[in-house]
């Protein structure tokens, strides 16, 4: 099956340039997952809460949003993996903070893609 081949890198000729356009399946998946991390109702609420508080613990998040701890942790893991939140240890506590630079970068990329 050539499906595997098709999955790797799509090389498209660009009539205006000697350089072809290359689209990597793997990078596309990564971009999709990163955007999906943020493009989610509950995770937006979590981000909103973190942003409002500057920094916040997991416990505060699940208490304030009335969520299960496990559910909260799952969503935080997705946000952390997308690098839109970062953690900071302070004594016994782990605080979540917004990675403002990453959010700004994503916003810029999304705006660029959205305008046509």
């Amino acid at each position: 099956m050539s499906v595997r081949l098709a999955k790797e890198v799509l090389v498209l000729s660009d009539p205006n340039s000697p350089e072809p356009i290359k689209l990597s399946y793997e990078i596309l998946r990564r971009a999709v997952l990163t955007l999906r991390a943020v493009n989610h109702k509950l995770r937006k609420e979590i981000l909103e809460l973190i942003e409002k508080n500057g920094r916040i613990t997991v416990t505060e998040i699940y208490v304030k949003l009335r969520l299960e701890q496990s559910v909260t942790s799952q969503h935080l893991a997705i946000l952390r993996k997308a690098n839109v939140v970062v953690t900071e240890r302070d004594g016994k506590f782990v605080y979540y903070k917004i990675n403002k630079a990453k959010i700004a970068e994503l916003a810029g990329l999304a705006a660029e893609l959205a305008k046509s």
Partner: protein
Amino acid sequence: MVHTASFNNSIGFDEDLKIASSILRALAHPLRFKILNFINENDSVNVYSIYSVLNLDQSITSQQLRILREAGVVYTKRKGKEIFYSLQISQLKKIAEILSYFEKT
């Protein structure tokens, strides 16, 4: 709407994010990758040649082409009764540039 105001407006990219996600999702698909590759090799192709050469169902092909068209990565031209598909190079180039940001992380 009011509810999502604080986070989304302060960062302000909710709608963009939805559009950007759907464009990237349209591309990140093995079959659509194959179709784009086929269009690239042939410059301009009709639906019939896509589904016959790639050995696909006509309905599936049409569905995939609609997704690609909505993502702005292909465009159509009518010649008589036939509709031909071509790559929208400017959009694909823009996507490739945007993807380079995701390469690093």
